[in-house]
Every structure is written in C-alpha cells, then in structure tokens.
C-alpha cells in the first residue's frame, strides 16, 4: 500500500493540467484555425472527459472547471471583479493588476471572436499558471486560517493519513502545544504511518484502533479531518469510517473541522451512501473472504452536512450551510456538467 494516500488527488489534478499545457504548446490539440474562446473551452471539456479515470473521479474535472472559470474571468470585458470580504487574500488583487497589464499590451479587443491565436495563448497560459499556483500553495493558506481555531493544550482527533492535516499540524506545532490522537481505520493500514510521521517531529501522538472511538471521544476537544470531495450541499465524501466518527462527534458535542484545498470542491449533490459509491473486492477489507463469508467493500462514505461544523479551505472559512457561495465564485454554473 502506498504511504502517500492523499497526495494522488493533488497529483492527478496537477498532471492533467500539465498535459493540457503540453498539448497546447506542442500543437497536438485539434483546434480549428482561428480559435475562439469557446473552441478552447470545448477542447478543455473534451480533454477532461478523456483523462477522467472513471465515474468516481472528481479531481480532474474539478481542476478543469476551475481553469475554465479563470479563463472566463481573465477575458471578460470588464476586468474588474469585486473582492468580497477581507479574508480573500491579495492574490486576487494581484490578478486584476496582472490582467490589466496584459490587456494594456495588446491592441485588439480581447474576449471577442476575432482574437488571434497568440492572444488566446496569452489568456490561457497565464490562467494555467495561476491554477497551478493555487494547487501548490494551498496548504499555506489553510495553515494561516486554521491556526486561529486552536488553543493550547487541546486534544485533537485525527483519522488515517491526510497530507493537508499533516502540514497543518507541523506548522501549528511551532506556536502551541497540543496532543494528538490518531484513529486507525479498519480497512487501511496508514494510521501507523501517520503516527510515525508525526512522531518524528516530536509531537505528542497516541495511536488507537477504531473500536476505541467511543471511549476516546469523550476526552477529545476537536476533530480534524481531511476530505476527498466536498459536495455542493455541504456534505463530504471520505474514506469509509468517517461517517461513524462524525456521528459520534455530534453525540458528544465535539466540533468537526474539515481542512481541504479548494480543488476538492465538486458541484454535485448526494442523497445517501450509495449515490457516489462503488463496491470493490471483498479481499480489500478482509483477505480471508470466501464466497460464503464475505465482507463488503465500498469506496467512499458520505457525511451529511449536519455533522460538520466548519470547512477551512484556502479560499476562506465556511460553514456547510454557506459553502455554496464559494462554488459560485470558484466555478461557473455553465461548466457543471463536465
């Protein structure tokens, strides 16, 4: 089992953007002679369809949606888009300045159908760069936001391996003391790896099996979770077992805080555990399964929004009831069918 589990999501998103860049620069893309913005957008949509690794792959379409939104923003006629609240960082401001400078270089109107190839590349390539930057720098922003929520000498509960949570804990350790309890999942063996990684940096770590969750939850102050996908209704998709933890946390009034990069926002709705799910081999859960005594393996657990207290993303902090606002900024409604 590979040790870096959360990494592949980011990895696949970044790889797909890089392939798009390679296609455009290597002129492999099948784009008509005088391409307009719409042609580029349809090409990107087709590419995301082709690179997608199955119906449960959310991360590649997410990043392409973000790219299309950035392209639209960059080439819109009025280059001004309002900065919503103070917490949005100055990056957005930097973007407007960048765009204005680009526009001042060119002489022909942008965003119209008669733009030449080079100009389109001037819009698209910078937007690709911006998206890549967002992907790589997401954990810094999360760390700054999240550090305001934790106090000294708190007991935090973590579940299985998550790179985002790991980065946050390592950066928060510099300023305050706390104790971490790592809960191991029944199906994967990454809890131990997580505990050793944290222990290398002299953190106070305890590793417990999953069956201990009920006993431990009474003594925990906060729960920190990584995530696989954030849905538009505020729900979560995560490693199997998360739902049980969230239900327990609500029972004991422990707040559940979710850390993630914004590339995990997926504009879809789920209703129950089976909407975005797939049955895998029983041998993954229990290697001694036979036909008569079988385990059932699933890919995701869906957690409804009632069980979550706060989402911390690199674009800001939101409650599950209000995270839809972020979707409308981050993506465009027209692109939700990728």
């Amino acid at each position, binding site marked *: 089992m590979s040790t870096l589990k959360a990494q592949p999501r980011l990895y696949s998103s970044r790889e797909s953007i890089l392939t798009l860049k390679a296609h455009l620069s290597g002129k492999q893309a099948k784009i008509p002679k005088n391409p307009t913005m719409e042609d580029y957008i349809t090409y990107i949509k087709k590419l995301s369809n082709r690179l997608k690794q199955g119906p449960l792959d959310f991360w590649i379409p997410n990043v392409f949606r973000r790219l299309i939104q950035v392209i639209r923003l960059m080439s819109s006629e009025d280059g001004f888009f309002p900065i919503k609240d103070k917490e949005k960082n100055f990056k957005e401001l930097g973007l407007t300045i960048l765009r204005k400078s680009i526009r001042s270089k060119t002489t022909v109107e942008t965003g119209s159908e008669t733009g030449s190839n080079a100009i389109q590349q001037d819009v698209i390539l910078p937007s690709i760069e911006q998206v890549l930057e967002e992907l790589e720098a997401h954990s810094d922003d999360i760390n700054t936001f999240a550090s305001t929520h934790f106090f000294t000498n708190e007991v935090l509960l973590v579940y299985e391996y998550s790179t985002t949570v790991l980065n946050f804990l390592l950066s928060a350790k510099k300023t305050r003391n706390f104790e971490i309890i790592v809960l191991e999942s029944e199906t994967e063996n990454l809890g131990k790896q997580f505990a050793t990684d944290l222990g290398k940096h002299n953190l106070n770590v305890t590793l417990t099996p999953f069956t201990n969750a009920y006993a431990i939850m009474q003594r925990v102050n906060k729960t920190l979770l990584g995530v696989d996908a954030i849905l538009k209704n505020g729900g979560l998709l995560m490693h199997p077992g998360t739902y049980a933890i969230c239900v327990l946390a609500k029972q004991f009034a422990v707040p559940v805080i979710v850390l993630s990069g914004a590339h995990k926002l997926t504009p879809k709705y789920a209703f129950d555990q089976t909407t975005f799910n797939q049955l*895998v*081999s*029983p041998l993954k859960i229990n290697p001694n*399964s036979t036909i008569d005594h079988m385990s059932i393996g699933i890919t995701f657990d869906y957690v409804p929004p009632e069980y979550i207290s706060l989402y911390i993303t690199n674009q800001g902090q939101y409650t599950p009831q209000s995270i839809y606002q972020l979707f409308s900024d981050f993506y465009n409604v027209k692109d939700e069918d990728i």
Partner: protein
Amino acid sequence: MSEFYAVILADSYDNQFNHLTNNIPKSLFPFVDDLIIEHQINWLSKNEIDQIIVLYRNEKIAEYFNNRRRPGRKTQKIQLINILDSKSSGDALRELYSHGIIQQDFLLLFGDVITNISLKEVINKYHDQRKEDKMNILLMVVHQGIQQYDEERYLYVLESDDKLFQLTDLQQKQIIINKKHITLTKGMPCKYVIRSNLIESGIYICNRDVLKSFQEYFMFAEIKEDFIKYMTTTSDIQEEKIHLYISPKIQVSQRIFHAQSYHNACLKYLSRFFFPYCPQQQYYVDFFKYFAGRVDQKSKISDQCFIGQNTDVKQKVTITKSIIGKNCKLGIGCEIINSILWDNIEVDDNIIIKDSIIASGCKIKNSIQSQIVTIENQKNVKQLLSFQKYDDNAFQSENSDQESDSHELHQKKPKENDDQGLKEDMIDIVANCKTVSQVKEAITNVDTIKVNSNIAFENIVIAFMAAFLDTLQPDVDSLKNAYALWEEFIIRFVSETEVVCYIKSIETFCRQNQQYHLNQFLQLSYKHQILSEQVIINYQNQMATIEDDQFAKDFVQSSQQFKEYLENIILEQEQQQNQEGDGEYEYEYVYE
C-alpha cells in the same frame, strides 16, 4: 512491449468436462456474461498486451475467431495455430517452437484462468531477474489463498528471493524434501521457506529457452509435473532457475478444473472478487444479483445470481446461487438451485433443476425420466433427477446444431414389436431368478431396459405379471414363496397408478384358471404391503356392483371375511387419529 506475445493454450487435455468438451472446447464456455476466452482477451488488453497467439485443437475456435466482431478502441492481433495432433501441452509448446514466431519472452496462459492480476509488476520483476542472471527462464505467478481443490494442493519450498527450490504434490503419501542442500545451524536464519498457502494461477512468463528445453526433452508432457519438477530436482546439474511472483492479497485468480470450481469461479465473479473485472454496473440490483433480463415480481431470487439478457423469468420461480444465460425462458413455479444454465434454454413449469450444468439449446419438458412425486401439500412436482456435484452424469449436452433445431424429449409409446421383445425379456428374467439377490439384479436389469427403451410403468407391470403368473402352481405355499421372493420387485414397480393394471392382470388370470383364487392373491398382496386397505375395499365394492358375473359373485362371497377384517383396521386407525387430538399442524411453508 511490442514484442511481447501472449500464448493461450485454448484446450485442456483432461476429461473433467468430458461430455461438454466433446462439442465445445473449454475456452468457449460461457462464463456469466461472456465467454472465458473473451474475458482473457479483455484482461490482456487492459494490461496492454495486444499480440495474442491462440493454440487450438478444436475447429470451433477457428470458426469463432473468424466470425468475431468486437467493437472497441484497441484491436488485438490474434494469430491461430493449429495443434490438432497433440496429446499434451508439451506437444503444443513444441509445435509453437517449430513455428518460430517467438523470439524472446512470452506469457503463457492456460485456457481456463479467470483473474485480475495486474501484469505490470510481474513483467518488471521478470525483466529485473533476467538482467541479474540469464538463467532465470520461468516466472510462475501464484496468489495467496486457501488451497481448496485437490489440483491446487502443492507444497512450495522457496529459497531467498522467491526462487523455487521444490514443488511437491500434497496428495502423495510421503513428502520428501531434497535435503541435500539444506543445512541448519543454530542461530542462523533459515534459508528455506515452506509455504502451503500459495495457489498457482496458470500464468507463466517464459523465455524462449523454455520452448527449447521442451524440444530437447521429448518426454515432457506437462508444464508443472514434468518441466518444473525436472528443473527443480536436477538443480545441481542444471543452471536454469525458476522464480515465483507472489501477488498481493487483493489480486486473485481461479482456474476451472471441474464443475465445482466452475460454479465457484462464477460466484466469485459475481461477488466482485475480481474487481475491477465485474459484470456491468447497469444490471446490478441488490446484494450481488445482476438482472439483465425480465424477472417477474412474484419470483424469489437469492443473492449471488445472474440473469442473462432477454431472459424471461415467470412467476413463483425460485433461483438460488445460479447463473442463467441469454434468451432463456423459465416457466411458472420452477426451482433452480446451484446450477449453471447456458443460452437459449426453455424450461417448462414446475421443474426442479439442482446442481446441474445445462448446455445451450435444451428444452426441458415435463416428462424427462421423471418420477411423479406427491408431497404433503398436494402439489404434483415433476422432478428432474438430481445429481451429485461431481458426478459425470451431471451434464446434459444437447447441442441444437446436432439435432434439428430443437430436441424434445417426450415419452414415446412403444410399438408392437417392442412389446413383444419386452415380454420375452421379462420371461427370461423371471425364469432365471431363484433367490432374493438375483431378484435385486433383476430390478436393475428391468430399470435399464425401461430407461433405454423409454417404456411406461404400466407395460412393465403387465409384462411382468404375465411372466410371473406363468411360474405359479395352484398351491398356497407356492404362492406364498413366490410373493416372498418377488416382493421387492413388485413394490418397486407397482405404485398407486399401476395398481389397476396389476389387479386387472390377476383378475384375468384367475378368470382363465379356476384353480387360483383372487382372494388369496389379494390377501398376500396386502400382507406384503403391495396394496393398501382402501384400494382393496374399493375393488371389492366395485366387484360387488358387477351383475351377471358368476366369477364376481364367487369372489364377493369368499372375500367377505377379508373385507370385514380390512374395514375393522380402517376404523381403528381413524379412532387412533381422533384420540391424538388436533392431529398434525400443517405448515404452509412461507417464503419471506
């Protein structure tokens, strides 16, 4: 990997599926939703191996590939090589060598393997080992699990780095481990590991040297028994080495040796053990049930079943752990338990099919070799003979292209000359039997005659009675002896529907020969439990109503006492039942 060939040995050289493999080779067996060989080609193309060589022995494979049209993104290049006059897999490999297509490495696959092992790591390990030592010629892929079948029971003795030191069959009485090179010193880690939780998967990655050595040693017939054994036992002379690749626990494979492993593999495929090679998601209903056809609301389908496309399942059908192919029609009230039905099968109402494999094109109607069985809740069920799981007789292979489109198995009325032959046979049999054990042989003889010539019970009873009554003498003792001798035979063949002709034949005999008394026959029949009380009383009442018959009147008079005796018995039985209270509680078996 443009030079990497996959070689499929598309036929088996054993007799396990003997009746079926006379017509269709094992690779063309349907496996849940597709043929076995299609599953293998799909697996190979997902692992990026596009050049396939199929070694075949049966012409049907060539026909199949000539007519094969599969739309898809990748097209595989498939070559067919004929190995018609080969008697073992060794011969097949020699034939392959003589064609000279294979230059370097190739993958050898048996034709009955279903698997989800990912070949990327396997091939990498093979190439690494080739770089280390040119003498590593064979990489055998095994997976971890519990050894279930006799063909899988082997003991693997491994050295460091998974090199195979010895492979022994666990079915022998003694297991000898080549101890020459094993030295144990205290405190040192032991160099050899003995494992019995490995199962070979039928996938081998070989070098061209393997083919060469098959060519050199002409007596090699099998890969495992001969070649690998030879290489491992003579490892001090030879330098060739064989290694194992042990796959992670998620990746399994299953070989289809015989009927039980066939059924097991189908159920594993349905339960998603070979993820990501599973039946299509759009057919998934519930706990591992896949419905691609129409199923009526009132029928009960258990877990782990598959209903093929265009199949019509009528009401009140119970299906348990079975696989039904395409275009089948199941009538009302059928029960199908632990069976595999192929395509285009029509099953009539109220038939039980249990532990069987039924090949394409059958029509199963109500009168195949059936016995009429009545159960307490008054349901007449015609039961197909249920077979043991490993029995050779468990296969009914009626291929539709042999007979003219549909082969209906009805009972035929025997013709006149058949009747005559039966009577002669019966006379022979009766005349020769003097002891009880000979009577038992006679029962089996008559059974085979009945089955072979499809004769009804009635005719047998009539013929037998004719022969039997000929041997009697007008003496009470001889009657008693004769009945005592033939009791089992008569009970076997005279059941409730044949009592009429049984009594009729005795009656006609007694009418013709006045020395015999019908009454005595009836009493003896009752004593040996051939006839029940009610039947005799009915018959006596019936005889009483016949007018103008001297014989009948005599009979009625002489049997008066017997009749009263029987009536008393019936009264006693009724009284006993009433005393027991409410009697039995009749359950109706309630399905959920």
